[in-house]
């Protein structure tokens, strides 16, 4: 038996076409290997923002996980972080619960007991309780909206009146569905907003659960006269979060929040504009031009574009033949980043990412510039046999890439805060430069 991780070159994929992407590169077609990338998705407590952390991005909220014990097991990784202390609670399902569904009847009392526990321990009473349910209730067809309404009603008369109860669906089973968990949880979060008077000088940036990094976008908005730029992660209180309903428009920075943006458009009359994170400065420039035109503002981006281009040039000058390996456990679309780096004049030897049809366009263009770039899928079982000795890279980007290539300098680039625009390009180039400099030293 040949011990070899399966890969396809960009050229091979181009020849097969968009409608014939190899099954080994697609999600959901085979058993799933537990690489760091799949773990980051599948193990919401492991890192990044899964459903649990996402649900708790609502200020002054707590979460009750109603599920078999196994579903909450790894939450201790998150619970140990100071910002999540006393915010996770568990109602463990038993086998009889599975058969009778009686766990659902226990939820109102469990919420009350949690609130009393917080009160008795002199903790702040939360403004919202997020109920996290998992695959079992997905299969049981539980109407969680009704369960939450009932629980909210049960709190209506008494000291906990006004506490909101909302469902968070941690349904890994629906990962490739129309409303995967990370889409749904964003809808849940923003469903807490209620209509209020509009403020022409307010804008929301939605999609992330941690703030944007120090990106030029914020400055452009301020220069355009926007006084209130809100992101959920920068709202310190529930009241401040509710003010997001006053926004004149939303800026969508992650496609997974598009459904929530649609809801807000419909229910709160807040239209949205979508901006994509890319690593090509020309594309960033044209995106800002389009954004300025639609939003009716002026954006002068020449200085920031120059800075980003200079960072690229500095890296290129120091390491003219630089070869990258790129993972998907990173603040980038691995295929778009690979294409951008190749257009900058660098080489990309390997990519580790599942190839969805919508990313075929990047691979198609990549194949024309770098036909030999190898594409592996993090989920493919044969990744068990991936051997670093095959790789020609000088540097890797992504936490998963480090896992596969532990001896090559790495820039994880998977921080919670979100790089964006020219700032993303500039900082990534500088990080790569520093990583290589450090390795050389």
């Amino acid at each position, binding site marked *: *038996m040949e*011990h070899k991780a*399966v890969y396809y070159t960009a050229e091979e994929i181009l020849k097969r076409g968009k409608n014939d992407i190899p099954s080994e590169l697609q999600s*959901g077609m*085979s*058993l*799933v290997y*537990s690489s760091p990338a*799949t*773990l980051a*998705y*599948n*193990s*919401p*407590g*492991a890192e990044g923002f899964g459903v649990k952390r996402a649900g708790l991005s609502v200020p002054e909220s707590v979460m009750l996980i109603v*599920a*078999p*014990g*196994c*579903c*909450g*097991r*790894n*939450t*201790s*990784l998150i*619970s140990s972080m100071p910002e999540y202390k006393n915010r*996770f*609670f*568990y*109602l*463990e*399902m*038993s*086998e009889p619960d*599975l058969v009778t569904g009686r*766990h659902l009847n*226990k939820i109102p009392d*469990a919420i009350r*007991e*949690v609130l009393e*526990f917080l009160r008795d321990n002199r903790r702040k009473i939360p403004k919202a309780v997020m109920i996290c349910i*998992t*695959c*079992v209730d997905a*299969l*049981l067809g539980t109407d969680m909206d009704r369960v939450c309404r009932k629980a909210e009603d049960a709190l209506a008369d008494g000291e906990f009146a006004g506490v909101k109860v909302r469902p968070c669906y*941690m*349904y*890994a*089973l*629906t*990962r*490739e*569905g129309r409303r995967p968990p990370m889409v749904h949880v964003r809808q849940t979060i923003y469903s807490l907003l209620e209509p209020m008077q509009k403020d022409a000088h307010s804008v929301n940036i939605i999609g992330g659960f941690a703030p944007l990094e120090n990106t030029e976008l914020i400055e452009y908005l301020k220069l355009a006269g926007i006084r209130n730029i809100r992101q959920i992660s920068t709202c310190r209180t529930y009241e401040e979060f509710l003010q997001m309903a006053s926004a004149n428009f939303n800026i969508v920075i992650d496609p997974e929040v598009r459904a929530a943006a649609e809801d807000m458009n419909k229910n709160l009359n807040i239209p949205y504009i979508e901006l994509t994170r890319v690593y090509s400065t020309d594309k960033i420039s044209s995106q800002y031009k389009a954004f300025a035109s639609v939003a009716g503002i002026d954006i002068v981006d020449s200085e920031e574009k120059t800075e980003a281009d200079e960072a690229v040039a500095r890296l290129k000058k120091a390491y003219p033949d630089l070869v990258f390996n790129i993972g998907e456990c990173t603040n980038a679309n691995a295929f778009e980043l690979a294409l951008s780096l190749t257009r900058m004049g660098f080489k990309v030897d390997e990519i580790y990412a599942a190839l969805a049809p919508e990313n075929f366009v990047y691979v198609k263009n990549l194949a024309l510039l770098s036909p030999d770039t190898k594409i592996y899928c993090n*989920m493919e*079982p*044969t990744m*068990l046999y991936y051997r670093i000795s095959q790789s020609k890279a000088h540097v890797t980007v992504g936490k998963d890439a480090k896992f596969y290539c532990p001896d090559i300098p790495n820039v994880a680039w998977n921080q919670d805060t979100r790089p964006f625009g020219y700032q993303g390009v500039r900082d990534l180039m500088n990080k790569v430069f520093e990583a290589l400099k450090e390795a050389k030293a």
Partner: protein
Amino acid sequence: MKGLRKVLTPFAPDQSGASGVLYSMGALTVIIDAGGCTGNVCGFDEPRWHDTRSAVFSAGLRDMDAILGRDELLASKIKSAAERIDTSFVAVVGTPVPATIGTDYKALKKLIASRINIPVIAVPTNGMKLYNEGEKEAYKALIDEFAAEDPSDAKEQIVLGMTPLTYGKDHIDISLDDIRNIRGVGKLIAASSSGIDACMYLGREYEIVSPVYRNNIPEGIKGRTLVCHDEVVGKTLRDAGVDCDIATFFKLHDIVKQDGDKKITEEDEFIEMVREGGYDTVAADICLKELVPDYEGNWVDLKCFAISGRT
């Protein structure tokens, strides 16, 4: 309220226990889930994952696979992987998903076995029991499939139940050959609750002792002590001369249990034991101290990976 946890996070579940037993045996282990359960195992409950990779995979189930009971698709995925991964047998491990749809593990095992030419075992875990139950089920499945009635090449001694979930970095792995020859082994040692169950299942004589704590009383234990860990850890300390009661969130066999010992399930039961017991020392994972912040006695940190996830 029964089942409500306000301080502690859930303990290692049965599927983690089963996977832990299988980890060192060269199996192609398939956890029948959508991804999250495997994430919990490899990303949290398996401290060996980042050092020695084993063939642990998620079945990658999706809603329609579960709703329509697409066992044929699962068998095909396993066949495809088994053709490309070196393995001596396939182990399928249950989770809440197959428990909810009522998967027939015997039939599933038969279906998979009909597609591949290596042995298959099925471990009927459901994610709602604790890790010791999963370890027990894994041992039983391995013994049923592989243990020879009259082995020719048996070891002098085998320790059962000394897994990372109970002992962290002090674990002792056993191999598939150990299981094959287990009926002929000179001496069986049960190092944890699941070890007792496995030995009982074999119907052989065995010794109940923790090799880690035999003649090794942790520093700081003094006076009347409450030991909260696996029952065998408590028994070993008691046998070594510690004046203790045993509290365990896991199983407490009659063969170990003495007056004052208690199998506990809820946070409140532990709190009550500590508050009412008048113990000079509590020997338990330090994460449990959060339940009794007002306890003023002596606390000895007896790490238990299955409780806190600390090695």
